[in-house]
């Protein structure tokens, strides 16, 4: 698919199912935040917290927003993940870790896609 130069490239996006889950969470609890986890067990999953629950450090990177909620990643992890776009989605089953559920018996998942060379060139921090 051809992109126009004006079209921005997002480091993180969300599927309609994820956006719907976020809007329910926000309506129910107020704003939420996401942090991309790594390593072991539930690693590689996005963890959804009430906004402010997880303390953001100076080396964390704000990848973008999903449904107006911030999505962060550890700065060191960012360095090894930055060639991929993260796509927030929803999967079946309650969260196995500390994340808020994506409504009912659902959990948030991160899907990934490797950026094309063209997209990488268009990123602020390619």
């Amino acid at each position, binding site marked *: 698919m051809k992109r126009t130069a004006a079209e921005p490239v997002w480091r993180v996006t969300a599927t309609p199912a994820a956006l719907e889950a976020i809007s329910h969470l926000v309506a129910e609890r107020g704003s939420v935040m996401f942090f991309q986890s790594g390593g*072991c*067990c539930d*690693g*590689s999953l996005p963890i959804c917290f009430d906004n402010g629950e997880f303390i953001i450090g100076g080396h964390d990177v704000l990848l973008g927003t999903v449904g107006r909620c911030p999505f962060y990643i550890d700065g060191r992890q960012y360095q*090894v993940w930055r060639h991929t776009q993260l796509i927030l989605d929803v999967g079946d089953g309650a969260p196995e*870790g500390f994340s808020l559920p994506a409504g009912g018996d659902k959990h948030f998942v991160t899907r990934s896609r490797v950026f094309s060379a063209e997209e990488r060139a268009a990123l602020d921090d390619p």
Partner: protein
Amino acid sequence: MTTDVFVAPGRPGSLVEVKPRYENFIGGAWVAPVKGQYMANVSPVNGKPFCEVAKSTAEDVELALDAAHRAKGAWGEASLAERAAVLNRIADAIEANLEMLAVAESWENGKPVRETLAADIPLCVDHFRYFAGATRSLEGRLTEIDKDTVAYHFHEPLGVVGQIVPFNFPLLMAAWKIAPALAAGNCTVLKPASPTPWSILKLAEVIADVVPPGVINIVTGPGGEIGKALATSPRIAKIGFTGETTTGRLIMQYAAENIIPSTVELGGKSPNIFFEDVMAEDDEFLDKAVEGLVLYAFNKGEVCTCPSRALVQESIYDRFMERALGRIQKIIQGNPLDRATMIGPQVSAQQLEKIASYVEIGRQEGAECLIGGQPAELKGELAGGYYFQPTVLKGNNKMRVFQEEIFGPVLAVTTFKDEADAVEIGNDTLYGLGAGVWTRNGNLAYRMGRAIKAGRVWTNCYHLYPAGAAFGGYKISGVGRENHQMMLEHYSQTKNLLVSYSTKPLGFF
């Protein structure tokens, strides 16, 4: 006569009884969750629920903390001999029920019984015995500050500790945490992982009569609810956690809010490094090294120290990998209750999905799939289970499949030129939990072992977890050590009595 295939828990003739429903183990008794909620517990072998466990809430954590606080005075003052006796009795009870617990663990987690019978459960037994011994050797220290002044240092228990364990070794990780906590005179409130809450309750049934009430308390339920309630509680004096990095940070943040210590063990991406001289002879050692590479499939790759990056010296890459792939091809996948099975199902549907998505990322990144690469479709009773083919991806260390823990039977393999290259690639990771080095050259093995930034470097072996060998992470793999008597320090605080035996005033006032 030994059984080749164990009967699934709960079925006629099984070694393992399954009740329809399990409550929390609090104060030595079975206590229903305050809000009366339960959740289905699924076996990954066939994807079907086989019992219910308590879906606890913060109120249940409070009940467990009440019980632990009631017990902490007497247990903290129990003599070293009494503590050791209880730990030994726990070990004896587990040993007497070894096959039953092994089958329960396999059924709930999916790991093959050949592992639980030979490793998980015997290691639990040994772990309690090790700490029974360690507690007998606990000694305080004293310093003679001057002729009339003595500084006495006593180990005092912390009191009540919180412990959160992962799903990959539900019983062994619980043993790693419970044994030192008790040995140091503490009472514990333990939360098992959400996918594997049941086998630890079977263990509680076995040890209920030999542990004073309230010393061990187990509360099951969702991490976000009861894990948080436990970790944030001002009524715990320490939190121990094994799991992934963000939750580890969260645990440390909660600990900081209450100003209590934490130990966290947070995963890895361990390099397994094979030097060319492993192929200098075609002998038993080469066979061991080939098996050493295939150990990435141990416990279906759900191991924090999974040797998930193989670095093979380029001069032997083709010949060595031919052997290794031949061995991987012969891995028997299937019912974990069959002694012949080498790899069972992943612990949950969520994990299976994550593994598949990683292999897909690897393909997009340009990795070459040498074997496997997709979920395994098994038939009959196993059709609904969460099986993934043993997989090998060839690529380079900058790919995400080389950098991120997949927690499945997926090996990322690459080559290196020489020793310096091996060190550089081996250390090019955020993690530092484990590593393996394989060579016939002792000098090289030593240099590599010291150069790799990881808490444990297995040398000419892998995946051994004996009590007495300290285990823990460098870099973002965690803080603290387990599996060693130094744990007693992690679970104690130091009381200093500074005593003057002089009768003379200081003379200041």
